[in-house]
């Protein structure tokens, strides 16, 4: 087990953008492209314990950005409390989520977290955030927030908690403060097919139909994962449509001189866990950001990044909002692929 050094002081994901990746963080970055060409596929695999120190070592990854991301989450929720939402029938799912994350954290990062249970009386300690709480499992009145929001404010990445019924999955609770340009306030309560409606090409290929069939059969204790990615200007976590006016214009700010600092590859390690008591599903979207300068310190990644960007299908380019600065980016990356 590696001990995680959590950065303190806090770095920012807005305004002055002080976010940086250490050498170790660059090394463990989950680079998502196995081939020179990218296309949608049912790219799901077992979410098993990965190499020590990698982002897959534990089911829920805690890294050096932990405190900074939790502060950022607090800022977003303060401005817009509706980034957390839950429908009335999700209590059991939300307690499931709290238990799954608390148990994982306490087991995998004992230097930072601990959980003790005496029947339904639980005691939770989150040392990096200075939290010590005793509560009754199943009794919402004993926690300061809904159990899902409570634990979501202490775990990196966005979460959707899904109910399973009518042979599909419903996005019936969620805590989303680092959305890659999608709105949970709009999607809350939608079925799997509805909330994936806008994605181009994949529907025609039957990707979602096959993916859904696979997801419905995920078993207890056997989670799965997949990658998703996009490009973001500056290390900005909150690129939700609700605040498009704050970040949309930054796509016009890319010049040949600033590509290295401004353009970030944004990778989502998406995980799916069957929830035990509710038979629902936890969908984790763990976001990692890296700027082009840092990414290109790895020659193999730099070369692959150039080819993937160069070969990108026009519809995917449009959907991910890359079209406007695509040429500048590819030109900048080309020097690593000669």
């Amino acid at each position, binding site marked *: 087990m590696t001990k995680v050094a959590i950065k303190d002081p806090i770095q920012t994901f807005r305004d002055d953008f002080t976010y940086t990746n250490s050498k170790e963080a660059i090394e463990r970055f989950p680079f998502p492209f196995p081939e020179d060409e990218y296309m949608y596929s049912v790219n799901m695999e077992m979410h098993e314990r990965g190499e020590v120190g990698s982002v897959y070592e534990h089911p829920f990854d805690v890294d050096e950005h932990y405190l900074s991301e939790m502060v950022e989450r607090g800022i977003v929720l303060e401005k817009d409390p509706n980034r957390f939402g839950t429908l009335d029938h999700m209590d059991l799912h939300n307690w499931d989520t709290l238990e799954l994350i608390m148990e994982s954290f306490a087991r995998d990062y004992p230097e930072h977290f601990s959980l003790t249970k005496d029947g339904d009386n639980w005691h939770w300690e989150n040392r990096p955030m200075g939290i010590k709480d005793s509560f009754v499992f199943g009794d919402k009145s004993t926690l300061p927030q809904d159990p899902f929001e409570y634990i979501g404010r202490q775990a990196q990445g966005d979460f959707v908690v899904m109910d399973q019924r009518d042979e599909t999955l419903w996005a019936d609770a969620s805590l989303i403060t680092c959305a890659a340009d999608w709105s949970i306030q709009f999607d809350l309560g939608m079925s799997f097919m509805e909330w994936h409606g806008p994605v181009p090409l994949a529907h025609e290929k039957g990707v979602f139909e096959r993916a859904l069939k696979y997801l419905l059969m995920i078993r207890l204790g056997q989670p799965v994962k997949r990658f998703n990615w996009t490009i973001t200007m500056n290390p900005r976590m909150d690129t939700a449509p609700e605040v498009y006016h704050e970040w949309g214009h930054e796509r016009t700010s890319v010049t040949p001189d600033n590509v290295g600092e401004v353009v970030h590859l944004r990778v989502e390690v998406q995980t799916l866990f069957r929830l035990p008591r509710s*038979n629902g599903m936890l969908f984790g979207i763990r976001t990692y950001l890296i700027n082009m300068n840092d990414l290109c310190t790895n020659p193999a990644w730099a070369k692959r990044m150039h080819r993937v960007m160069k070969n990108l299908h026009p519809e995917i380019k449009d959907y991910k909002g890359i079209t406007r600065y695509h040429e500048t980016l590819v030109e900048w990356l080309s020097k690593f692929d000669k």
Partner: protein
Amino acid sequence: MTAPFSNRVKITSVEQITPLIKHFKFERIDGEPFLPYSSGSHVVVSMKNDDESHKNPYSLVGSSNNYMQYQIAVRLEDNGRGGSKFMHTQVEIGTELEIGNPYNLFPVYKIARKHLLIAGGVGITPFMTYIDEMDMTKGNFELHYATRDKSHAAFAEELLERHPKSVKLYHDDQGPKLDINALLNDQPLGTHVYVCGPKGMVDAVLKVANELCWPETSIHSEEFKAPETGKPFTVRLHKSQRNIEVTEKETLLEALEKADIEIPYSCRGGACGFCKTVVVEGDIDHRDYFLTDEEKESGKCMMPCISRVNGDNLVLDL
């Protein structure tokens, strides 16, 4: 983090709770806690001794909050292929068994306004955990539970004591009978009906619900369908070029497992879909609930846990 697919367990308590049903409690041999589970979940129990081996699914009946213990209730089936007989005659306190992780094919529909539960005989088992969930979520429910007589009504006293107003018992030998038509005819909008019991009862509830135009998504059933026996046949495996005999009493899946061919499974009753296998050749006798009519018609795949072949010609892509 992947939980072991099977857990070694040992029996800590056996109780004959009706003339035909035994109630078993067990704990993990390694002393570790079990996973919590959802209402309506089942586990597959693997039984083995020198002469025979069986794998049967049983609903969990204990509280999901007791991490140290799982519980099942097993009815002795005279015409079964031996799994329940094994549980009744070979299993006692201290017996070691293997069980898979829980899986749920009969979950509570969380947004139902009212849950109408109908149980027949040992079909009460999945509802034991439903009642726990109703307690926890303060769900609006009624349980209608029919058995041949009072002595065969497993868990009835406990259920009545916990929910005197919501639990109604019916016995074939005396008192009023369960009138499915009247019951389903008098339910508020937003009610979901769940039925678990013998085939006759499940069919009757489905028929009445359909006749009364209940929405299909509001009707849920779990039939305890154990694989039936059939004529023996030989299966040819296309990829590995082997021939395997399937006897009258065993299923195709069991015969494949005996020949060390691993196929994923969960329910072993034709419902979950895990064991779906590609057919190269053969007139399949489909007995499952999982495949669509189109898939069955195509003859390109089958569920070896329950389905067999008409005639003696079967080639699988294994």
